[in-house]
């Protein structure tokens, strides 16, 4: 408040900015939309960086699963894993869930922004609502990927080799997943006005998706009802190719390979990894589309 004194002697020689800087806002164009997407994306990164606690907290749960559950259940699981470390087995699934938690959290920022009014600032800007949604989704995907990278860095601890091609493949897959999950989260977040409700809804959706996806078990020889649910769960199609990728870089006995990495099947047909990745991508695009439509018609 003490700083207001400067204004009284404007035009004085020591006042550095007496000239009025007039700017003008151009007509809407592709360039201005791209600029809007970029700044919304950058805001997500700035916020993520300033919120170090979040980086830590969203890693706690996946790491608990990986190291505590993985180590704890090892002795029981020994019979079925054919000598493979349980941690290695669940690693792809844990990577997916780590990315998923972070992506969902990023999407939550829309609800947050609404509660704290900032959403309004973006809503009245002369840009397309779709630019804001795309910026948000890309931002969420980037942030979630950072989280993924931390988990990728731990690969060596669970017996997964640091093979450049493998790392690249995993990174690509988790980026795709991060984008799709953020799009899904944004789609949900646009409709929800309160943070508590959003968190409740997320819990209701995320945990079942995680458990059903096969992140913690093999997708073959499941009871019929679980097989059906598993094939419907979108996360299945992220965990499975990730696991295929990891297992193709391990030297395992055929029996272990068969038991632990049976691959997802549709009516007996083995779904190729690329198709699975495409399923995730296509779902992401569809949900992004829905999110944009919803967002464009609110308020």
């Amino acid at each position, binding site marked *: 408040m003490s*700083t207001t004194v400067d204004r009284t002697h404007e035009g004085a020689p020591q006042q550095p900015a007496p000239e009025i800087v007039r700017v*003008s*806002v151009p007509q809407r164009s592709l360039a201005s939309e791209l*600029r809007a997407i970029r700044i919304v994306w950058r805001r997500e990164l700035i916020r993520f960086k*300033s919120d170090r606690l979040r980086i830590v907290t969203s890693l706690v749960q996946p790491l608990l699963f990986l190291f505590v559950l993985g180590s704890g259940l090892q002795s029981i699981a020994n019979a079925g894993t054919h000598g493979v470390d349980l941690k290695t087995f669940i690693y792809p699934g844990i990577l997916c869930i780590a990315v998923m938690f972070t992506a969902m959290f990023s999407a939550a920022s829309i609800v947050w922004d609404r509660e704290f009014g900032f959403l309004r600032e973006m809503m009245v800007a*002369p840009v397309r609502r779709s630019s804001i949604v795309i910026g948000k989704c890309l931002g969420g995907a980037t942030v979630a990927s950072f989280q993924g990278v931390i988990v990728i860095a731990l690969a060596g601890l669970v017996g997964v080799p640091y093979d450049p091609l493998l790392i690249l493949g995993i990174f690509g897959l988790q980026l795709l997943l991060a984008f799709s999950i953020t799009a899904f989260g944004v789609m949900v977040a646009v409709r929800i006005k309160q943070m508590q409700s959003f968190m409740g809804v997320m819990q209701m959706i995320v945990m079942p998706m995680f458990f059903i996806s096969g992140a913690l078990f093999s997708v073959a020889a499941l009871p019929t009802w679980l097989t059906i649910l598993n094939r419907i769960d979108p996360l299945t199609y992220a965990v499975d190719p990730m696991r295929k990728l990891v297992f193709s870089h391990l030297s395992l006995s055929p029996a272990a390979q068969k038991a632990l990495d049976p691959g997802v099947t549709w009516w007996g047909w083995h779904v190729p990894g690329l198709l699975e990745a495409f399923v995730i991508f296509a779902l992401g695009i569809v949900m992004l589309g829905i999110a944009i439509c919803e967002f464009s018609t609110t308020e």
Partner: protein
Amino acid sequence: MGSSENGHHPAAIEVRELTKTFGDVQAVRGVDFEVATGEVFGFLGPNGAGKTTTINMLCTLARPTSGEARVAGHDVVRERDDVRRNIGLVFQDPTLDGYLTAAQNLRLHAELYGVQSDLVEPRMRQVMTMVGLWDRKDTTVGTFSGGMRRRLEIARGLMHSPRVLFLDEPTIGLDPQTRRSIWEYIRELKEREEITIFMTTHYMDEAEWCDRIAIMDHGQIVALERPEELKAQVGTDRVMIHTEDDEAAIAALAERFGIEAGMSEGMVTFGVPAGEEFVPRLFSDLGVPIKSVNVSRPTLDDVFMSYTGTTIRDAEEDQSRHRNRVMMQMMHGGRR
């Protein structure tokens, strides 16, 4: 439409028979007015009178139910983006990102509005210097006080050199000192930049700063004049008395003095040309014991009272129920 942008615009804001209905509640009922370029135009009225709804329609945030409005020469429904490019907004509720610094908030705004990259920095410096926040530019907004946030919001609203600046209750909830400094910025703005300012307030004393005031009540404009003209119209002093029997006093005033009095803030209230000289007569002739007397010169509050038959404070209490109803309507399917 962009090329003729600098052509002559007779008015910064033109509004014709604007209405807005939420469900069965008519929030704005046929409003007409024009605001000239460079004017500071005040919208005065109790909460729930339809001020914010009107401002939202002018800012393209709400779609009019009927009628038409042009802002900076563009139709608020058909040329939404053109309106948005030319207006700055300061909302009643804060809309800053508390996690970002002051400068980051302004930069984000500049990027969203597509301000030329090489002008972002100098413009930011200018608007932040004006509101006295330049040396706090790298501070996280979350640590700012309410007054600092409001000042930053004003600076942000000016980032893209809008032709019309909308301020919805810019000083609500601020201490008198901050309120005063905000009014100084507004005055300075008016002098330095060719900007039209449209604002709402329910502080009577603030309305005096405006070039013209529209008094809004129950969704309609009941008076539109320069502040001094409005006050001149009242022309009477306001007398408020506490009596032993208010109803008898009102009856006696009508009968013996021919004065129509009403109840306001729990006191019998009426207007007379020369209040002080009237008081002795009041004591001798009223016939109802008087406990206390208060005589005051005309204020905008009296103007408000003369148009609406109630003071702004009473109207607020009365309308808070109405407002709740409007809000309920808005929440339950009143959205477009």
